[in-house]
């Protein structure tokens, strides 16, 4: 049975990189005695894949991994069970069965929500409420990207699906996935430039909220909404 798990990552766990988080969950599955499926072969490993790695220094409410299990208890019990074996700064939010033919989150991911806050709000010279709409109202937000094959122009505008100014920061819905993956710090870097400033390495506090795939009609569906609770 395919299962999609949604979890959050908080506090100092933001200093633990993606590979170590994967190792962490492998050990956690064994501690919690989850009846997870193993690959065959000389050194079997758990069938487990993560939708989208989270960069170092970023916290999140909306991370996903897909696993396969041979047996399971109802979703509610599984969430409690997993949380018993987790460290405090990892929380499981949903545990849902996927259709057998479902693709992994990794394969279908299309968008991500972020909240952007400022580590040193006192140092900020711009007024987000008026300056952000000015930045976004342009038809194109062109940036030059240096790749192996030279320089190319990319327009960020169509990759920013949505945005708005919050009380203490900014909300962004960005294109995400293996094809076009737009990082919030890139967007903010352009915004700072637009304001005639330079974004410092540690100026932002980033928090991921949710990950989405595209539905049949092109609409964005949160990854957890593609599965159903096990009763």
């Amino acid at each position, binding site marked *: 049975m395919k299962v999609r798990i949604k979890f959050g990552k*908080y*506090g100092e766990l933001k*200093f633990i990189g993606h590979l170590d988080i994967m190792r962490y969950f*492998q050990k956690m599955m*064994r*501690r919690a005695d989850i009846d997870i499926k193993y690959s065959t072969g000389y050194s079997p490993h758990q069938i487990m894949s993560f939708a989208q790695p989270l960069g170092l220094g970023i916290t999140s409410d909306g991370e996903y991994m897909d696993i396969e299990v041979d047996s399971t208890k109802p979703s509610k019990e599984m969430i409690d069970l997993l949380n018993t074996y987790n460290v405090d*700064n990892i929380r499981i939010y949903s545990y849902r069965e996927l259709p057998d033919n479902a693709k992994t989150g990794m394969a279908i991911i299309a968008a991500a929500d972020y909240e952007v806050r400022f580590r040193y709000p006192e140092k900020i010279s711009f007024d987000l409420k008026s300056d952000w709409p000015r930045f976004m109202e342009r038809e194109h937000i062109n940036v030059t990207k240096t790749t192996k094959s030279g320089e190319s122009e990319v327009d960020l505008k169509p990759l920013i699906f949505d945005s708005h100014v919050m009380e203490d920061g900014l909300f962004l819905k960005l294109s995400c996935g293996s094809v076009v993956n737009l990082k919030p710090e890139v967007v903010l870097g352009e915004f700072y430039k637009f304001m005639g400033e330079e974004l410092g*390495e540690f100026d932002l506090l980033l928090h991921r909220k949710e990950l989405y795939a595209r539905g049949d009609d092109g609409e964005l569906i949160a990854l957890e909404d593609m599965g159903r609770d096990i009763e």
Partner: protein
Amino acid sequence: MVRKLALPDEILLKVEKPARYIGGEVNAVNKNFDEMDINFCMCFPDVYEIGMSHLGIQILYDMFNKWDKVYCDRVYSPWPDLDKIMRDRDIPLFAVESQRPLKDFDFLGITLQYEMCYTNILQILDLGKIPLYTAERTEDDPVIIGGGPCTYNPEPIADFFDLFYIGEGETQYKNLLDLYKKIKDENPGAWREKFLHAAAQIPGIYVPSLYEVEYYDKAGVEGDNPAPMPELAGTISSFKPKFDFVPATIRKEIVLDMDNTYYPEKPVVPFIRATQDRVVLEIQRGCIRGCRFCQAGMVYRPVRERSLEFLKDKALKLLKNTGHEDITLSSLSSSDYSHLEEIVNYLVENIHGKGINVSLPSLRIDAFSLDVMSKVQDIKKSSVTFAPEAGTQRMRNVINKGLTEEDIIHGADQAFHAGWNRVKLYFMLGQPTETNEDVEGIAILADKIARKYYEIPKAERNGKVQIVASSSFFVPKPFTPFQWARMNSKEEFLEKAKICRRKFGEMLNSKSLKYNWHESDVSVLEGVLARGDRRIAPALVEAYRKGSIFDAWSDYFVFDNWLEAFAKYDITFEYYNERERVFEELLPWDFLDCGVNKRFLQLEWNRAKEARVTANCRQGCSGCGALVFGGGVCFEGKNKVR
């Protein structure tokens, strides 16, 4: 839940592997620091991934935290990247879980696993803003206590420690902490001296500041107290307690009942991959073998085994509580464990598979070990390992390594027939009485193994054979029969490695053989630190001030710092390494009693020179002295004490 971290995000995001400094791992213990009677910070003076792999620390961490009102936290050496930042910004070193500065703790316990971490001790104290020397510490500083194998000669670092715990930590720590609390409660603001004096009377506790050491001068014939013989020039003339209540000798502490003692069931599981990323089952302590170069084999005597039931029970609990995918056995010589077959079979049959691997420790190669190895390893990717330690039988007799050429060739042959084609061999260069013939014997032995492989008909062979021989340089250690031995100089070592390499080139199967040898700079330094005395301390500080830390890491080891520091304080390799000591010499560690007595070590040194082997504890007791502890192998039924 947001814990307040000692380091700001900007630093943690800049340094390599920030997980080294944030604590909060699975099974880490968090207690309310301010409500404790005693806060104890356990330190492994090397990088986190190494420190977290150490079973001894996990045992003590678990033990302390089981006690009411005692909290044990951890600290490791900040890697050079963070070390620099902490110095530049004047950030005091902190423990990983509570994130409190080291200075806030009652105790800082430092484990001393190898000599090359000595400058890291100074790094920890210095970054912790604790005075380096015991003499400079005040009522506000923690008690600095050392433990672990290097305490069998603590003298080079004696001036930096308030206390040393000699032997196994499970037995006396409770008494020590209770004593501390009592004295501190009764004498707030004036406890330190009283506590050190009282601690000196607890078995196994050595308080270095309560002893006076004197030396014969260089000429050895001058002064009020001339040395009785010229060989003693410059050596220790007396080592005495300063007060009547301080014991003249200190016997190591040891656990006798290995089943009813502390053993962690929930060890801390790091987020980042530790060097030892697996469940470790300590099957026994000590070794019956008596190899004459091996300190562990002497100081951990007598062998004490854990029961099969104990190990089975712990194996399951530990796997469950850690989620590790790997389990291994640990001991000095696992093949000698009485229930080896049972425990290995149990692990392979009941645990191996479905995501859990059993990794075997190095076992004596025989039908049994090859059989289990073939069950848990990929024969094509793994190798069989032998540690003959010396190339000729004469030399192996000198070091009392009971492994014959026939054992090796026969073992390798069995492995080849079972499908293996890779062999690893470990040797030591520079052991007492070694000749060029012994050195070349290493290459000849490796070649013989290769020849054995090619005796197998080509159709049955598994491609080419690969034999990798590595040699390290022999460093004489305290409490071994070789503690009196002359150590080779750096030049002699390199010359021997050259001779050996040349011989490898001349061998028939040289294309199948590979030879590696270790750095000699580190070895000669290790020699000085291993058998040094209190006069080394200022040179250690000097090397540290010149920037030496992480000396065990070749990328950071700067030999010149040490040469300059030694020159400044007149520390010479000639004196500390390159002379044979006479039995009349008072050795810096003679005040310690590890059970094995000096008479036995002398006898063994004499037998070594005659290339005579000595039986192991199970073939027949040779009366080493460890019987005084009243347990272990010395009292196994078949083992008659002569």
